[in-house]
């Protein structure tokens, strides 16, 4: 048995990953000074860690077929998720204050207090992901009730965004609710069909026909995030 073999791989990993307490770390470094074998094992372990890190410093960005162009490549996705984080932050109260997530180039996702008071609005974005007729109907009903319940003189906007199976709500050859949609559009409700879901269906050879006046220029998440950043209320159906 080699003299360094009592040092397990788990211990070596713990050392290179900074999981050991200072005392244990000193002991292992001292041992590695005396044992070229142990020192070599330690170097190999470090090298593996560094290689993995290096291999993913730059990663290929996704290709988008439709929707907002990527220029620079990841700008859209970056702002989208940064927006989502912002929304998350806005929605989370912490120690009685409101916070938002700040995306930085280094370190953990950080949190900064919001300087200004967040304005309450009374607009709604409804998100439909289910293709079940009762869920689609519930979304339309919800929109109608929200419009009906707006106070006198109050301007309330309602939008409905559909993705995944929920896209069926807006497919003219599938939806059972074309008339209800038209009547809500007449009341200025805007309907969004997720561009990503459309892409996926078309990649599978499905021709997507949408009800008139449906906006298909955004992904569902993009629309939701944009509206939530504007303090709209979000409801998933």
């Amino acid at each position, binding site marked *: 048995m080699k003299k360094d073999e009592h040092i397990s791989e788990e211990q070596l990993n713990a050392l290179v990953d900074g999981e050991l307490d200072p005392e244990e770390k000193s002991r292992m470094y001292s041992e590695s000074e005396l044992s070229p074998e142990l020192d070599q094992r330690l170097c190999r372990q470090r090298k593996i860690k560094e290689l993995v890190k290096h291999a993913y410093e730059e990663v290929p960005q996704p290709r988008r077929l439709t929707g907002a162009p990527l220029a620079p490549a990841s700008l859209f996705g970056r702002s989208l998720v940064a927006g989502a984080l912002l929304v998350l932050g806005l929605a989370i109260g912490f120690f009685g204050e409101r916070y938002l997530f700040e995306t930085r*180039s280094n370190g953990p996702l950080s949190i900064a207090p919001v300087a200004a008071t967040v304005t309450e609005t009374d607009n709604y974005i409804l998100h439909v992901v289910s293709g079940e007729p009762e869920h689609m109907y519930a979304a339309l009903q919800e929109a109608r009730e929200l419009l009906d319940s707006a106070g006198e003189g109050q301007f309330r906007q309602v939008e409905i965004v559909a993705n995944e199976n929920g896209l069926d709500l807006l497919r003219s050859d599938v939806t059972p609710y074309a008339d209800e949609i038209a009547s809500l559009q007449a009341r200025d409700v805007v309907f969004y069909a997720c561009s*990503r879901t459309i892409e996926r269906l078309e990649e599978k050879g499905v021709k997507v026909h949408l009800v008139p006046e449906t906006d298909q220029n955004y992904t569902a998440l993009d629309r939701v995030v944009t509206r939530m950043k504007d303090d709209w209320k979000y409801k998933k159906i």
Partner: protein
Amino acid sequence: MGNSRDRLYRMAYAWTHDPQLADDLVQQSMCKAISNQKQLKDIGAVDAWLFRILSNCLKDYYRARREVLSSEELVVIDTRTPEQEAAELQLVNKVRKAVRKLPTTQCQVVTLVDLEGFTYATVAEIMEIPVGTVMSRLCRGRRALRESLINIRPEQQDKKSVSLQRIK
């Protein structure tokens, strides 16, 4: 290190090696994060929370695709063309190829520790497994990487394509 979106995307890419899928997983994760934001009780744990959602999205993806009998047993597909094989000679591609061959759960642990610098305890929280399991998966994963990248010379590497298979 990139910003938060880049961090999630880079991790998703390291797990899947598919830019489109990685992007989808990140977006899906953010949708879920928005929907379930009330579940985040400890603001300090937001990193682990987001990466846990990402990890669960990957699980859901595999479940939906029915590709994985058990993610512990998964060995990932390699369908390289000759041109791509040539590119593999480059260091980065060689490392990615080795990472891609790891079982998914080992790949996740290795990349969470190496790319994000998460502690073992945080990785345990993200993947909802005991710390001991994190350590053993990390150990097995790094051992496999070491064998691929350091101990084996290029001409000794197996040139056959591998497909999805059980390893037990």
